[in-house]
């Protein structure tokens, strides 16, 4: 009873002191307990489900990557043998380079285009809602739809090649540059752009809607050039949205499987494609290698995202931001 004093100070509600304090403290105590219970019970389902379905699988993968997989008669736990095998293989290193390349280039391009588009459409423009409806369309369809479109347009015998043939730029399908199934990865990156320019546009637009166009107008009225108004007035305000969207875009590109599998080269390819290839090798005793692969993908992606966020925080601080 006496210890409830402590708890009482944490309660948000006023302390009822009707019958000489004793009963009042009891009520407070009960309220605090009930509040804690409400928080715990409210969070329990979502956290519980994610612990089982999200953390659980990651732990299974981690444990197996360290050599514990009794189903395949692998009982070497704990061993870093599988990580070592993966890390020294040239295929892994090539895949890291290409995964980074396929992830970073579209992130930069879609961020630039998406921001430009959001800033442009933040102004008065006719049919803005219709336009935004069409920009949102790629956002709500699977990446595979983008893959089919890029295939139809940019395959050797695709529509772009046909248009070029019709206007006399090329004379056969052989002269059309190899966009799909090539190490250059333009087919892969075009699919990402198709989905991610609109994505960046939506996020930055939402931030811009909160910022409004008044600041920019004031800056322009006071004589700032268009680029200066953007650089010093608009950009700092939309920066959180730009960072969020580019972070999500990068995180997606880094782990995408189906797009590099369908439109990329057989070799070199990306980490997720290599990982699933290892997973499907007939010799199941080598499955822990696939698990090491996916653990490394997760860690690498985490490191890049962490460094990116840290760089952003530093930039914010260097501006003397809040």
């Amino acid at each position: 009873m006496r210890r409830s004093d402590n708890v009482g100070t944490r309660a948000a509600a006023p302390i009822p002191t009707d019958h000489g304090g004793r009963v009042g403290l009891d009520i407070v105590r009960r309220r605090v307990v009930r509040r804690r219970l409400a928080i715990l019970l409210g969070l329990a389902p979502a956290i519980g489900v994610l612990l089982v379905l999200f953390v659980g699988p990651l732990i299974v993968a981690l444990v197996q990557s360290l050599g514990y997989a009794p189903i395949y008669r692998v009982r070497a736990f704990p061993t870093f043998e599988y990580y070592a095998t993966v890390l020294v293989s040239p295929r892994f290193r090539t895949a890291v380079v290409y995964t980074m390349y396929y992830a970073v280039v579209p992130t930069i391009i879609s961020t630039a285009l998406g921001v430009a588009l959001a800033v442009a459409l933040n102004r008065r423009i006719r049919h803005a809602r219709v336009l935004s409806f069409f920009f949102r369309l790629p956002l709500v369809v699977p990446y595979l739809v983008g893959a089919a479109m890029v295939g139809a347009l940019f395959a050797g015998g695709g529509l772009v090649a046909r248009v070029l043939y019709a206007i006399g730029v090329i004379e056969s399908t052989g002269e059309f540059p190899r966009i799909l199934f090539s190490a250059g990865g333009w087919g892969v990156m075009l699919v990402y752009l198709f989905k991610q320019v609109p994505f960046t546009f939506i996020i930055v637009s939402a931030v811009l809607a909160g910022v409004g166009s008044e600041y920019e107008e004031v800056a322009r009225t006071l004589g700032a050039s268009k680029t200066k108004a953007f650089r010093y007035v608009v950009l700092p305000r939309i920066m959180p949205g730009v960072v969020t969207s580019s972070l999500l875009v990068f995180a997606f590109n880094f782990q995408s499987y189906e797009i590099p599998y369908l439109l990329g080269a057989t070799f070199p390819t990306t980490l997720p494609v290599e990982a699933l290839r290892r997973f499907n090798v007939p010799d199941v005793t080598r499955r822990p290698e696939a698990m090491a692969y996916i653990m490394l993908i997760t860690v690498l992606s985490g490191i890049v995202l962490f460094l990116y966020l840290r760089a952003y925080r530093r930039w914010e601080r260097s501006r003397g931001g809040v």
Partner: protein
Amino acid sequence: MVRLSPAGRVFVIAMFLVFSLPFLPLILASFAFRWHWPELLPTQWLWDVRGTTPYPVGWDYLFSPISGLGPAFGNTVVIGIATAILAVAVSLPAARVLARYRFRGKAVVEFFLLVPVIVPQIAVGMGMLLLFMRIGIARTYTGIILAHLVPTIPYAVRIMTAVFQNLDPQYEEQARTLGAGRLTAFTRIIIPMVMPGLATAFLFSFLISSNVFLLTFLISGGRLQTLPTMLFSHIESGAALDATTAGLVLIVSVPGLVFLIIADWLTGDHTALGRTSMAPSTRKNSV
């Protein structure tokens, strides 16, 4: 408002074309029977050859029982609805707590509820497949629905947290003061007030579920087809302007299209599309 420069207008229109035009060749291709290099348009259409081919082609093939489109569509809808119901049910109480209370470790909880969006799905998917094989729910509806909860819960929590933040907790308190029980206050006051947000979260969860490929692909092991996995195998084995693949792409895009229209309608802008084209006149009237 600052007006858009001519160059800016050209940019916006160019981008609009780039992002809306790719659907056109697929619509054409889906009705084509013969579309050889280097023709810009199909030379023979589906209706030209209908009945003369030994087996149905294009749309006729897709809508015939042999294509497997019906089961794939049904699976996508059933899995999507089940996922959305579960995701919303699980996320609703968490969203309410996150919007209402401040407590120690809240930032950690918020981070944990978002992190499945960033962590590579292939890592979760492969671990999950091993886990599900152990407990015997790999290659089942249950397994796929549970898998789809991972990418949907973070979004459902986010959407509904925003909804609860805009909801004044005093309504609930007043209902309780007036004698409503905890449950009554929840079902009669809270639920109706958060209904639009709830519907958005439900629709968005359904949309994510209907678009997920990799998790379904891994967990189903090819036994259960959904629209994305069916499209995947068609792209994998088909030519660039294949009529069946093109038709399938259009069907796979339907849930997203419906979502966009409903979302516009839910946010109260259902007349926006019609209004925009006559914006100047309505604006004059209102002033």
